[in-house]
């Protein structure tokens, strides 16, 4: 694999994680359980879409074919998306959304902390700005896991079910393939496998405070980084990309 292709893929992975989760959270807008939560989720969605814009613009510039962030977001097919499977999972109920957010944002914060030192100055600059935003996302989501887990019998059951749904997508966050290895060696990326102990520690502390058990271990599902997605992503993109597909290059 050429170094250039790996570097483009790496920027796409970072951008697609943020874009897909931002779009998912946007689905809550106007539907969240409380006005305050509605605003909170929309704030997080907008933070993530802002990050996606920067990472995708960088990927487009590296690629050099004239594709900007909008083209990559709205005119790319599902098989070309490089996000992890966790972020494309359906919102489900509020607890399932919070489970996804706590697992992802805890990982995302650890990633961005390391990426601040990336030898790719564009990636380092985005990470420096994004790490503060994501620290809030992680704390918001983990606080909610505690409230729901240690809440009523119903909120607890929903939190258990939400974590159970998302847990099979955790291993993929830490998996290292050829792109990841090449980028880690080049000083651009992160050896994600080294993040696991700290992630485990943070998640276990959250579960203990929420009086919840760690979900039973299971075989991790992988493939998102290579474009092998769950059925959910295609449906999400058909809605997200509708306008630019139906009216190419439409502007406000």
């Amino acid at each position, binding site marked *: 694999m050429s170094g250039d292709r790996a570097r483009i893929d790496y920027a796409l992975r970072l951008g697609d994680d943020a874009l897909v989760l931002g779009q998912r959270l946007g689905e809550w807008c106007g539907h969240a359980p409380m006005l305050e939560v509605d605003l909170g989720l929309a704030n997080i969605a907008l933070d993530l879409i802002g990050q996606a814009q920067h990472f995708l613009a960088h990927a487009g510039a590296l690629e050099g074919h004239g594709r900007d962030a909008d083209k990559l977001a709205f005119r790319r097919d599902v098989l070309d998306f490089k996000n992890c499977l966790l972020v494309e999972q359906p919102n489900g109920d509020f607890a399932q959304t919070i489970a996804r957010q706590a697992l992802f944002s805890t990982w995302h914060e650890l990633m961005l902390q390391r990426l601040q030192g990336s030898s790719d100055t564009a990636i380092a600059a985005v990470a420096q700005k994004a790490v503060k935003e994501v620290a809030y996302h992680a704390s918001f989501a983990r*606080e909610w896991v505690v409230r729901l887990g240690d809440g009523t019998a119903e909120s607890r059951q929903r939190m258990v079910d939400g974590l159970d749904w998302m847990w099979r997508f955790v291993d993929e966050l830490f998996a290292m393939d050829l792109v990841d290895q090449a980028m880690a060696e080049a000083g651009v990326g992160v050896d994600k496998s080294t993040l696991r102990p700290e992630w485990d520690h943070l998640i276990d502390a959250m579960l203990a405070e929420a009086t919840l058990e760690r979900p039973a271990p299971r075989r991790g599902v992988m493939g998102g980084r290579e474009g092998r997605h769950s059925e959910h992503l295609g449906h999400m993109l058909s809605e997200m990309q509708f306008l630019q597909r139906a009216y190419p290059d439409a502007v406000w």
Partner: protein
Amino acid sequence: MSDPKKEWPLWEVFVRAKNGLSHKHVGSVHAADDRMAIEAARDTYTRRMEGVSLWVVPSAAIVASDPAEAGPLFEPAEDKVYRHPTFYVVPDNVKHI
């Protein structure tokens, strides 16, 4: 409306716009506890860089004056113009007074 007993408690939100100014009441949020009230206040009232510090206070802890007593409480001040410090010139560059 949903059952009020099932609603989260109400919290009054105060924002300090910048250091040196006092916290000002800006509105209220519903939240299950104090930590969540701070987060809800942050998301609701400081999204556009409105502040550098937040206070939340349980609305139930606020003691309000009785509107029926407004006459005895406030009207006696109406004709006491000498209590206003209007006989001083305020320098132009004094902003927060």
